[in-house]
């Protein structure tokens, strides 16, 4: 009623919203890993988005705007992108690329080094609504990698393929002893991709888990509700950084097993829920 143009978009591909789904595609992780391990260490370039991570994060491109291996920017229009020489050296990774029949932009390997983490953030410009999609194919990973989207832990396993809406808050913490490497394909949504997503949502039940520390924090919260003195203490730390430190310290002191990352995402989520609450609808 308010927006008469909206009805015309109803059958549009852009109308789909999916938070995440595993895709009905599976690749041989052993073959992919062998190719990735053959890539010269010198080829890997540190990721540009240094504000968002702690530790080391590096990347190589199989497809980029300049056609260069060290060009790891994802932005650009579709006709600018072409394969890099690395793609030709990696036939199995190329086969993965070929398995996705949508127009591809940047295709990169992203390596999150052991002990590194990507802080919670959102990528607003990557949504299906803008006709864009990003696919993850884990090549090397472990149970110690915590991949959290909208406060749910997703278990991305080697050789699988995933679609995730990264406009949602997400963080990655590699607590393992080995580097985590994903193949990440960016492209534009077409009929084929839309059908694939549709089928995935209908056929695949994507399990999600509670992030480590979330359960501990829940118990901690209940404890806080009963502890007037602790409430007073934390109320006094009225500004955000001091408050977060006070919460993490209070939890650690009492052995509740959660860290800054969990508290930050829960706080962000609660804040978002408050801001987005509907009053009159």
């Amino acid at each position, binding site marked *: *009623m*308010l927006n008469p143009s909206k009805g015309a978009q109803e059958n549009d591909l852009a109308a789909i919203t999916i938070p995440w789904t595993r895709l009905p595609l599976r690749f041989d992780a052993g073959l992919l890993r062998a190719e990735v391990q053959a890539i010269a260490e010198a080829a890997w370039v540190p990721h540009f988005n240094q504000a968002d991570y702690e530790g080391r994060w590096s990347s190589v491109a199989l497809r980029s705007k300049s056609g260069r291996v060290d060009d790891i920017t994802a932005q650009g229009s579709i006709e600018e992108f072409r394969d890099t020489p690395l793609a030709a050296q990696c036939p199995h990774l190329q086969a993965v690329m070929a398995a996705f029949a949508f127009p591809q932009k940047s295709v990169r390997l992203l390596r999150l080094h052991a002990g590194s983490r990507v802080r919670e953030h959102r990528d607003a410009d990557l949504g299906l609504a803008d006709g864009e999609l990003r696919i993850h194919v884990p090549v090397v990973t472990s149970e110690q990698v915590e991949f959290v989207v909208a406060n749910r832990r997703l278990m991305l396993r080697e050789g699988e393929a995933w679609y995730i809406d990264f406009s949602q808050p997400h963080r990655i913490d590699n607590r393992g002893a080995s580097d985590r490497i994903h193949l990440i394909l960016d492209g534009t949504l077409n009929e084929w991709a839309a059908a694939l997503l549709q089928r995935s949502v209908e056929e695949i039940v994507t399990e999600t888990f509670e992030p480590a520390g979330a359960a501990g924090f829940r118990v901690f*919260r209940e404890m*806080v*509700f*009963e502890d007037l003195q602790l*409430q007073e203490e*934390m*109320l006094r*730390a*009225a*500004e*955000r950084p001091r*408050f*977060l430190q006070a*919460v993490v310290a209070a939890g650690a002191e009492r052995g509740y097993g959660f860290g800054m990352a969990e*508290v930050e995402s*829960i*706080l962000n989520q*609660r*804040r978002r*829920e*408050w801001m987005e*609450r509907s*009053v*009159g*609808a």
Partner: protein
Amino acid sequence: MNLSGWIPARVAWRSEGPEVEWTLLGRQRLLDPFYEQTMQQQMVNPFHQLFRRDTSMEEMVAWTEAHPGAPLRGIIFHMSRCGSTLLCRQLGALERNIVASEPAPMDAMLRAQLHLPELPREVQVSWLRAMAGALGQPRSGEEAFYLKTDCWHIHQFDLLREAFPGVPWIFLYRDPVEVMVSQARIPAAWTVPGMLHPSALQMERSDWDPTQTDVYRARAIANICAGALRAVQSDPRGLLVNYTELPEAMCGRLREHFSLCEQDVPAMRQAAQRDAKEPSMTFTRDAQAKQAEATPRLRAVVAEHLQSLYERLEAERQAQMEAGAAVSV
């Protein structure tokens, strides 16, 4: 569970059922012109974001049954922009009073059907009582609770009556030209089609022409006035009050109606000295300024949709004042 010091900040409609989110208000009194402002100020402190506390409706009902809160001594209905904030300020000037002004969690209870169409009436009534009990918890020794509803809640009059039988109520209104001028200056969100579900205003989707927001607004306010006329005819416990009677009405005609005494008058008079929505400014009558600002178009819209209802309200009020003695029960 000990919810002492906690107050409902909002109701979230989850797939598993409604959830009340409580915030720790401690001993603070509700002194802001609107309940929502108090909640907003709470949420500036990250403690209140991270440590809002969720309960089910059943838990709220159980808690308030064990801790009934201050008794509800008055309900204030109004047509919007007609001095209700001033009136609440006068009530709040008395330290023994709790005044909740347009609390969103109460609106959620009153319009629960939007989310739960099959909700049995007796359950909704129990939720309303529980919400009043939760909002009306004494935080610094208060003894009485007053609720100012959102203007569209006159349409929920029967439900409120059933939940709170015998509680005195008023409907406050004002010359519709002045109300419409105020709404034209700074339109309330609910007067914008689509911002509030039209069912709350007893409007139909086909009821408005999107190019004529003033007509939509006038019709919504007309429905509110018509609702008030029906309410006052069905229940003699209600008083009609015109803005022109403020602020003195609280010290005269409304004093006994709202269980106040002679000693309360000075504090209420003093509270009226200040502008209710801008505490730094003094309260001034602005009827003349608003009348002068009314365009011919606005007057025409008022004449078509509101004037006769206003006159009927005035006639009813006159009758009530003439029967004055009967009101002081």
